[in-house]
């Protein structure tokens, strides 16, 4: 059954940025948009398994640090070569200044 997992304080993520969140043996990328919405996707790029948290957040895009592959982090959708496979995305919310994601 899916459950809400505590990630960090909202202030731990800069606006328009991303952090890495490891949980069990899985790794996620948790985003804070410019207007303070939070989102979560798989943490590794589907091209060559690089941590997306080292990448660049622009508008609703996360750009992978290795080959600049782009995903829409609000949906996980791959936006073109060299990334062809979508990321899984996960529900995320903020409660009392704390970020949670649902796994």
């Amino acid at each position: 059954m899916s459950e809400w997992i505590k990630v960090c304080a909202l202030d731990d993520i800069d606006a328009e940025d991303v952090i890495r969140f490891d949980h069990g043996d899985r790794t996620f990328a948790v985003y804070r948009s410019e207007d303070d919405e939070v989102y979560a996707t798989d943490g590794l790029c589907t091209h060559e398994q690089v941590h997306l948290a080292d990448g660049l957040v622009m508008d609703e895009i996360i750009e992978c640090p290795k080959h600049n592959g782009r995903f829409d982090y609000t949906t996980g959708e791959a936006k073109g070569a060299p990334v062809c496979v979508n990321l899984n995305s996960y529900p995320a919310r903020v409660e009392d200044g704390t970020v949670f994601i649902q796994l």
Partner: protein
Amino acid sequence: MASKIPARDYSLIGDTSRRAREQGLVTAQWYQTEIPRKTLKQLMKRRDGPAIRDTLGWFALLAVTGGLVVALWGSWWVVPVLLVYGVFYGSASDSRWHECGHGTAFKTRWLNDWLYQLACFMIMREPTPWRWSHARHHTDTIIVGRDPEIAAPRPTSLAHHILAFFTLPQTWTTLKSVARHSLGQLSVDEADYIPEMEQPRVYRTARVWLLLHGLIIATAVLLQSWLPVMLAGVLPTLYGGWLSYIFGLTQHAGLAENVLDHRQNSRTVRMNPVFRFIYWNMNYHIEHHMYPMVPYHALPQLHQALKHDMPPVYPSTWAAYREIIPALWRQRTDPDYFVRRPVPATGKTPDAAAPAAA
């Protein structure tokens, strides 16, 4: 009599490829000089302004020199003007191809994609195969049997380099591959790095290219003049690509193969503003490989942020060549030789076996 030095296997599907995998050199963890995330974010920031300015300047230079070619056609004065036009056509397009392929030149995506397509046509590199080959070059930089973009294979073949100065091997390979792709076929190496879902795009573009080259040749025939084929298509790539070859060799030639530290297999070279305009700052090559997200216009600042952990910068293009020429010469007969770069002992070289997603 000296025995013949056996050629190394640089193909992507041979024994060296298997060995690279066994040695943990494939999709491995590379050394990165640490940089505060805040600084990096600042440097990675995309802007349209610098690339729009540089692109308009580039187009203006092409228009002026191209116009002079037309005006002076038939006189000997056209020769030096053609040489300048050729450099802007066949060499400056290399760096535009490169930077737009990374998607970092402009903030606006369609501008990157549009200039990428144009530059690809000018430099005679098919857009989709080269996007994938360049991704591989960044994953497995100068790893033998993995990197499809090794410009100075060992042992050195002088004939190869003389031909490459005129962009001949690459152009010939492209002409063959465009013909092959227009028939809906890939080579075995290409099939190794171009995913299936991208393949129809390869075939489509090859057919459009055939049409465009056909139109350029048809115009020349119709006008009964060489002028159209001297201004666009294959010929300006051949007579104008030499400067991109000169720049390109400084990137990795003569340095180590099969290492996981760009400071040991890449060069950062100080260049004059004209070269840096044509080359779009790719002279900061170690920095580019370490942080490919940083746009060309921010590479000088990235260099400042990382230089405490870099080997000494080559003070000029000529200084780099004073190392490259003897190294390549020696690699004719001693393919195991390479130039060892003095790397600061500030960090540790990564464990060859560590996976990228540790």
